[in-house]
């Protein structure tokens, strides 16, 4: 069924015009997921019965004419987002049997818009990883070549959308966990401004950085999903109160010859050169030329402190994680060890058994930097450098509307290539982390392929609350190019047939 190869916008329209039913679309998504699962391992839980029931409800609403703007569209949620009545594991043994008691705010928003939840996607354990290899449920593989990682931590969502199992999925981004897997899997991923998509029901990793956002194949689809995910939520104390906006509003004008006339794109010198593979640099150069053809001008600029993003992040994120993850104690929910001698032993054994190696490492780093005598040297220092990085970006955004560069320094790497060297793994997020530290929005879109045929991502960054402009710029680029329309061989109907 080709309808599921369409974008969210196209599929939602086909459903509204009753050219196919949500039950048909959902059944096809379930067939594709089952067909791809042995190779990709993109899902942790598939909810066949729940999905078909939701699809029937969507069809009824479509028949009555009171359906939401995404009615009947099958989607998947990253397994860090709570889904009422459905297992929510966070990719961890700690929550292997945890059934969420309520919906995350973004889950509820997408439900209200009419989407059909087909299942929960695989992820790095507690969203800590850049390759989806730390999941208790096994690694996810890249649909472009299963020898390679899909990126992480939202690797399952990225792989599922890239392989056309679902037209869209949710993710969360703490240091690049939406944008980097979107880049490595050849799709779009948006990290919105911190505070516009609620963290309520998102199992916390680093609360000052965690941001839910959408994965889809086009910027337009990201806008449609964001419309259902954003909005003030009093249950998240950091949710920002501001008027609702339509993030797709700037996409509707018919594009003229030079639709980006007047746009200034900043090209930071720190986003070029050393450590970046030649095919990634070439893809960025080609994109710059395309944006110029579309009418944009470019300005060279410098972000001198951006190189400290990784060390700042690896103080702040583990510090917040060590505090957030202290709630997993074996007493109230999650894994409890079978054998223990006393309460302290119960805590220690439950946590040691329930958490994997990377999660424990980050808890230990966080505990150390917050411990007596080290707080000023590490945590306070990192927060000060965070301020310097944010100031650099404000100076840059005084000179341009959009900052352009690579999302990741290379295309996807092979499974196992970086698992023994955490620092090398962390450096994969060198271009994405600043978006979280500053809280500004950033989008990864497909921008070419490596010599091995693996996707390359371009990162577009904008100032606070400029999502509509960011999405418009990407939309114009996608109107003029077709990188986003390329699909891996093992995708769509091919994977559904593989099973049949």
């Amino acid at each position, binding site marked *: 069924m080709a309808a599921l190869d369409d974008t969210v916008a196209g599929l939602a329209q086909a459903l509204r015009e009753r050219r196919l039913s949500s039950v048909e679309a959902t059944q096809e998504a379930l067939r594709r997921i089952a067909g791809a699962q042995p190779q990709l391992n993109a899902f942790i839980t598939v909810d066949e019965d729940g999905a078909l029931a939701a699809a029937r409800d969507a069809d009824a609403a479509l028949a009555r004419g009171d359906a939401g703007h995404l009615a009947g569209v099958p989607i998947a949620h990253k397994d860090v987002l709570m889904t009422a009545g459905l297992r929510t594991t966070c990719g961890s043994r700690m929550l292997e049997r945890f059934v969420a*008691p309520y919906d995350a705010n973004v889950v509820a928003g997408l439900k209200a818009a009419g989407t059909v939840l087909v299942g929960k996607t695989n992820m790095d354990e507690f969203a800590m990883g850049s390759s989806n290899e730390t999941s208790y449920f096994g690694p996810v593989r890249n649909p472009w070549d299963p020898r390679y990682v899909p990126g992480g931590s939202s690797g399952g969502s990225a792989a599922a959308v890239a392989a056309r199992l679902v037209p869209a999925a949710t993710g969360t981004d703490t240091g690049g966990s939406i944008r980097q897997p979107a880049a490595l899997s050849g799709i779009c991923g948006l990290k919105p401004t911190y505070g516009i998509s609620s963290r309520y029901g998102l199992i916390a990793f680093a609360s000052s950085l965690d941001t839910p956002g959408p994965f889809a194949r086009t910027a337009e689809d990201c806008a449609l999903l964001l419309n259902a995910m954003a909005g003030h939520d009093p249950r998240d104390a950091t949710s920002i109160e501001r008027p609702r906006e339509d993030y797709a509003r700037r996409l509707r004008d018919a594009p003229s010859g030079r639709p980006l006339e007047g746009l200034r794109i900043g090209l930071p010198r720190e986003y070029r050169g050393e450590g970046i593979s030649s095919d990634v640099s070439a893809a960025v150069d080609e994109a710059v030329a395309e944006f110029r053809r579309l009418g944009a001008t470019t300005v060279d600029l410098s972000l001198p402190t951006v190189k400290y993003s990784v*060390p700042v992040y690896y103080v702040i994120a583990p510090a917040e994680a060590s505090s957030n993850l202290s709630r997993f104690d074996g007493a109230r*929910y999650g894994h409890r060890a079978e054998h223990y001698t006393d309460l302290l032993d119960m805590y220690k054994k439950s946590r040691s058994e329930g*958490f994997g190696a990377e999660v424990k490492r980050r808890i230990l780093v966080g505990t150390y930097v917050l411990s007596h005598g080290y707080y000023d*040297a590490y945590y*306070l220092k990192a927060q000060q450098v965070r301020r310097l990085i944010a100031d650099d970006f404000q100076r840059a955004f005084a000179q341009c509307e959009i900052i352009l560069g690579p999302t990741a320094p290379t295309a996807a790497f092979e499974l196992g290539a970086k698992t023994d060297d955490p620092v090398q793994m962390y450096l994969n997020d060198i271009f994405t982390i600043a978006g979280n530290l500053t809280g500004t929005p950033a989008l990864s879109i497909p921008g070419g392929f490596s010599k091995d045929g693996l996707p390359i991502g371009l990162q577009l960054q904008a100032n606070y609350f400029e999502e509509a402009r960011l999405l418009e710029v990407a939309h114009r680029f996608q109107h003029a190019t077709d990188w986003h329309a390329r699909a891996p061989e093992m995708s769509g109907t091919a994977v559904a047939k593989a099973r049949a």
Partner: protein
Amino acid sequence: MALTLDDINRIAHLARIEIDAHDAAQVLGKLTAIFGMINELQSIDTTGIVPMSHAQDVALPLREDRVTEPDQHAAFQALAPSVQDGLYLVPKVLE
């Protein structure tokens, strides 16, 4: 300052994570590499820089003091490893 095995054992205890001698040695190697990277920060002059604890400068919101949550203790305790009479059961801490 170099991390030691004693540091690893101390922070593992603070974090309530059990760690055996073999794991402690491995963790020491990995954390030493991570702190090697983090220590780059020490060279930056941050005199007078106000720490940034959050992406947005928003004041903590206040709400009216009224009950908004229904009683869901049964639903939440259904998730617990061990419960009796509405209480979470843990090993005895007082004799």
